[in-house]
């Protein structure tokens, strides 16, 4: 079982990204869970979202305390949340930032596993013209976790975008470009 914890802020789409990851894994035949942990609901408040992906039915309904991967959608959370709490040594943390890794490491509370970074703002601005971090972050998660094969991922996402953006097809190509670019931009 792969367990993933997403750290975002309300309104940034961390929940949507986790739901999309569950969708893609589901379509490849996996058992999935995607669920948010809500505090006071407001834009900008820290939000935690969880994914479980397994080959057999998932019964556990608790939050995830020892994730394989921690995904930081908003780097300002590094200052307020311990994003590596309980994170497995052989897992990884993925941070949305344009800063070099050396500047991120001091915020990881001595975590000894892998650190990956992705500049989701750059990817989003170049491909969508607006800042939607969730699409590039989703691609980064697929790249690092290998939860789904990359080709399958792109194919499934194309179908998913066609459904989701049925009324505004002009954004489909931009979102797909964001995914492709993000897969390459993960460091």
């Amino acid at each position, binding site marked *: 079982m792969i367990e993933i914890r997403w750290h975002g802020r309300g309104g940034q789409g961390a929940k949507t990204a986790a739901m999309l990851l*569950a*969708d893609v894994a*589901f379509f490849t035949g996996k058992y999935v869970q*995607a669920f948010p942990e*809500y505090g006071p609901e407001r834009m900008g408040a820290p939000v935690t979202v969880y994914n479980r992906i397994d080959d057999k039915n998932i019964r556990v309904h608790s939050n995830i305390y020892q994730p394989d991967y921690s995904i930081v959608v908003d780097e300002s959370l590094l200052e307020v949340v311990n994003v590596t709490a309980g994170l497995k040594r052989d897992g990884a943390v993925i941070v949305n930032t344009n800063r070099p890794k050396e500047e991120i490491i001091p915020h990881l509370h001595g975590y000894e596993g892998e650190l990956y970074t992705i500049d989701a703002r750059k990817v989003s601005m170049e491909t969508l013209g607006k800042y939607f971090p969730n699409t590039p972050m989703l691609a980064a998660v697929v790249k690092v976790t290998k939860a789904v094969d990359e080709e399958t991922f792109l194919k499934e996402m194309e179908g998913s975008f066609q459904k989701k953006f049925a009324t505004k097809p002009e954004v489909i190509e931009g979102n797909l470009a964001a995914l492709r670019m993000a897969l390459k931009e993960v460091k």
Partner: protein
Amino acid sequence: MAKRERLSGNEAAAIALRQINPDVFPAFPITPSTEIPEYFSKFVADGLVDTEFIPVESEHSSMSAALGAEAAGARSLTATSSCGMALMWEELYVAASDRLPLLLALVNRALSGPININCDHSDSMGARDAGWIQLYAESNQEVYDNFVMAYRIAEHKDVRLPIMVCQDGFITSHAVQNMELLEDEEVKNFVGEYEPEHYLLNPKESMAVGPYGVSNYYMESKFAQVQAMKNVKKVAVEVMDEFAKMSGRQYGLFEEYRLKDAEYAIVIIGSAAGTAKDAIDRLREEGRKVGLLKIRFFRPFPGEEIAAALSKVKVVGVMDRAESFSTQGGPLGSETLAALHRAGNTAKTVEYMYGLGGRDIKVEDFWQIFDELEEVGNGKTVDGYQYIGLRK
């Protein structure tokens, strides 16, 4: 053919309702049940159902409209949570005593205060004496399946009682999980047309619904409600067996998990049972004789059957997700202990309060509980009523 899907508990509920295609659905939104009428109203707008959807101005009105429609002869329902249910309190009793088999999609959420949007069972447990059938679920699949079976149980001529189909707020309602859907035709045929024997819009029969009950008759009406509630067990088992033939998924009044040879067992309701099962599997690998009994029907409470299922257990831990302020435990504790006592079962018991206001319960918490139950079995004395996961 079953269709493999991944849905949230609220989506699963809404899809089951689309397949059932009820006649009248008045609703007023409240977190975390809002999505059920939200998804459903889209089905209405898209012409996928011919349900009369009524956006009303409060939960007092939604339950009033639902029971009014049901009395008129329409298959009706509404959805709510927490304080929304508190506002329908008066009508809950009216629906039950007027023997109106409507459905309430209840997404369990803590009652205020402090105000909180997350799961516990204080809303439905507070209404346990209102005369409704109460059915609970562990997973999104069970939520969906319960909806498909609910009207068949409630509308049965030996029952005719309203039914509350409960699921854990956010934990299942907002969590996407794998599940299997039945074909629309299968559900339609299973649920069938609603043909009430007596209803207000029947031109051939004049009747009054909800008249004053004088003292000479009031008690008989309550006795009749109890008889109907007693009949639920037999009817529910028949419906669940028929459902199993269609779906391959067999349900009972409660579920026994690795209970047959268990010496230490917990009794629990809802989504936490899934977490407990993972905990039990791990302990079983160590050779420990542990199991669980998961309540599905809390009303009626299948006390005799539960006592029989627990007859070989040495120590029972009863886990409540709603405070009752008796200072002796929660509602499930009271019912379970009464059932054991009546059956002459002298198993030791410990009551645990957990998960209030959405406090998470983990696999490790269950390990600790089973450790303690075993210590009690070995003669240790512990506090018989404890809070799990409390801040130190």
